[in-house]
C-alpha cells in the first residue's frame, strides 16, 4: 500500500495532466465554482434516479467521480437521499413500473430543485418510447430543466450540462405536483 500511495503522491495529480478535452474541464471548473457559489453557496447536491435505464447512463454517471473528472473538486456531489438534493439527475426512459417511484422521489426533494434528464432515453424515451411498458421521457412525469443528449452522454457532456444548468438560473422554482 505504501508504495502505491507514495507513487500516487509523487506523481503529478491526474486531473492536471489530462489530454485536450480535459483542459476544457479546468475552465469549466472555474466557471462552475462561481455560478454554484452564487446560487447555493459552495456546492450542489445531486441525487441520481434510474427510472428504467439500460445501465449505460449509470456507468458514465459513475465515471464523473473518477480521478479524471473528479466532480467533487468543483463542488458537485452525489447524495444518498432526495431529501438532501438540489438536483435530480434522471436516467433512462421512465418505465411504468418506475413511474410512481420517480414521482415520489421528486416530491421528496425540497425546493428549489432542478431536474436533469440525462441521456436520449430520459429526454424522449429513446428506442423504447413505443413500448407498453414505458411512460416516455422524464418530462412525461415531472418537469425537466435540462436535457443532456447521448447514449450514454459522455462524462464531459454531463459535466458541461450541469454547468449550463447553473448558468441559466430559473426564475421560478418547482412546487406542487406536475
Amino acid at each position, binding site marked *: 500500500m505504501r508504495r*502505491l500511495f507514495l507513487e*500516487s503522491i509523487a506523481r503529478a495529480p491526474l486531473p492536471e495532466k489530462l489530454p485536450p478535452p480535459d483542459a476544457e474541464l479546468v475552465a469549466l471548473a472555474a466557471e462552475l465554482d462561481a455560478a454554484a457559489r452564487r446560487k447555493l453557496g459552495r456546492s450542489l447536491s445531486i441525487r441520481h434516479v434510474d427510472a428504467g435505464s439500460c445501465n449505460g447512463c449509470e456507468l458514465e454517471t*459513475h*465515471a464523473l467521480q*473518477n480521478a479524471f473528472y473528479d466532480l467533487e473538486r468543483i463542488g458537485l456531489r452525489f447524495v*444518498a437521499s432526495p431529501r438532501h438534493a438540489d438536483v435530480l439527475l434522471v436516467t433512462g426512459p421512465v*418505465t411504468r413500473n418506475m413511474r410512481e417511484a420517480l414521482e415520489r422521489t421528486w416530491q421528496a426533494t425540497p425546493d428549489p430543485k432542478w431536474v436533469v434528464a440525462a441521456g436520449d432515453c430520459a429526454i424522449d424515451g429513446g428506442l423504447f418510447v413505443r413500448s*407498453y411498458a414505458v411512460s416516455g421521457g422524464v418530462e412525461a412525469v415531472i418537469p425537466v430543466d435540462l436535457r443532456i443528449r447521448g447514449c450514454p452522454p459522455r462524462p464531459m457532456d454531463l459535466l458541461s450540462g450541469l454547468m449550463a444548468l447553473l448558468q441559466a438560473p430559473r426564475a421560478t422554482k418547482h412546487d406542487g405536483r406536475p
Partner: protein
Amino acid sequence: MGRFLDLEGAAIAGHRPWPRFVVDVEQWRSAAHRLADGACALGGLWADSESVHMALIDAKAGRAVFSLPCPDRRFPSIGQFHPPAIRLERAIADLFGFVADGASDTRPWLDHGRWYLTHPLGQWTQRTAPFEPYRFLPSEGEGLHQIAVGPVHAGIIEPGHFRFTAQGEAVVRLEERLGYTHKGVEWLMAGADLSTAAKLSGRVSGDSTVAYALAFARASEAALGIEVPDRAHWLRALMGELERLANHIGDIGAICNDASFALIHAHCGILREKILRAADFCFGHRLMRDCIVSGGVAVDLPGDGRARLLALLEELRPYFARIVDLYDNTASLQDRTVGTGILRPELAERFGAGGFVGRASGRAFDARRSLAYPPYDVLAFDVPVLHEGDVNARVWIRIREVEQSLSLVRQILERAPEGSLCAERPHAAGGEGVALVEGFRGDVLVWLRLDGDGRVARCHLRDPSWFQWPLLEIAIEGNIVADFPLCNKSFNCSYSGHDL
C-alpha cells in the same frame, strides 16, 4: 435425424446452429427430470405465439432447443422440478399468459400491475381487474424484523426492491423483487428490422452492450446462414475483451469500495477510464455501442489503434499488478471478503450460474471455451476456477480473468487478419438462430426467428443474471445486513438485462 438426451427425432429445418426438436408432453417432462438430476443445464425458457421453448446445455450431448406446442396455453411446469426455471415461468405467464401447470409460485414477476394491458406478447387484453398487492413470502418467528429497501437505492445503481428479514444483525431471508426496469424489449423486437433489433439488443444491459450485440448478431447470422469475414470475428473479440477488462476492473474497485477501501476503487477508476478512452479512440464509442452489426462490424480499428492499445496494455499490466498486490496484502480488506456471501458449488451447478459467480463456485463453464466460437478456438487462454464461492473468490476470478483478457487483447492485436469487415446481407430470407456468447457477467443467450422479409418475428434475450439473482438470495443468508452491498456488488447482476 438428430439425437439429444434420450430423444431421437427430426430436428426442425432452418434452425441453426443447434438442433431444435418439437417434443410432446412426455419428452418435455423427461427433460425436466434430466435438468433436476443435473444431467444438463437450463440455457433458457421462453414462449412464442403457440409454444414454449427450452434451451438445454449438456456437456456431452451438446446443445439443443426443445419446443412444446401449447395451443391451449398451458405447459407442464419445469420449475416444479427445477427451481432455476421458476422466475422464467413467472415471466412467461406475465408476458404471454401461458400457465405453467404444477408451478408452486404463480405470483406475477415482471408485471407490477402498471401496464394498461395484460399479456402484452400473447393474446393481450386491456387491463380491467384491479391488481392484487404483491405478496412477499411470509417469515415468522421470534425477534424477526423486516427491512425493505428500494426500488430507489442510495447510490448510482439500478432500481430493484430487496426485502430482508433479519434477526438482530443476521439476514434470515432475502427476497428480491425485480422488474422495475422492464421496458418491453421483446415486444419492441417483434416486427423490427435487423438493424433496429441489433440496436435494441445493445441496449438490454448497457454494461454488456458488446456481448449482447454479438449474441444478437451471431443468432441472426445463424438464421440467415451468413459467413462472417475473419477480421470481423477478431475485432468483435477485441471489443468483447475490452468490455470485460473495463467491467472487471470497475467491479474490483467497486467491491473494495463497498468494503470501505476507497484507495483501490480510485485506482481501478483510473484504469477503467483509460480503457474506455482507448475504446473510444479505436471504435468511436466509450462502451463500443452499435459497433457490431449483423454480418460483421461497423467500424475498423484505425491505423494508430493498434499502437494505442499496445500502449494501454503496457501501462495496464504493471499498474494492475500493484493493485492486486495491495488487495492481497491488506488484511483488513480480506477480513471483509473472505468467507462472506458463500455460494456453494452444488447450487452454482444446479442453477447453471455463469460468469464469475459460477466460476468462483467451481462451475467451469465459459462459452468462449465450451462453445469456442471464433476466434477463441485459436486463441490461448485459461478459464480460472475457484471453489470457495465467497466474495474473495469472486474478486480473484475477476483478477485472473483480467490477466487472461490482457493476454487475449495482445494475441488479437498480433494475429488479427486483414480483410473485409462485413458480409453482404442476403435478400429477405427467414430462419431461426440461436447464440450463446460469453459476456463479462456470464453467458448471454439470444434466440430469434426471422420472417420472410428478414424482420424479427420473435426474439428472446436471456441475461446471465436470471440464474444469478436467485443465488444471491441464498448466498446472503446468515450474513450480516451490512455485508449485503458487498455481496451484491460481488455478484453484480444486471437489473435491466433481467427485467428486459
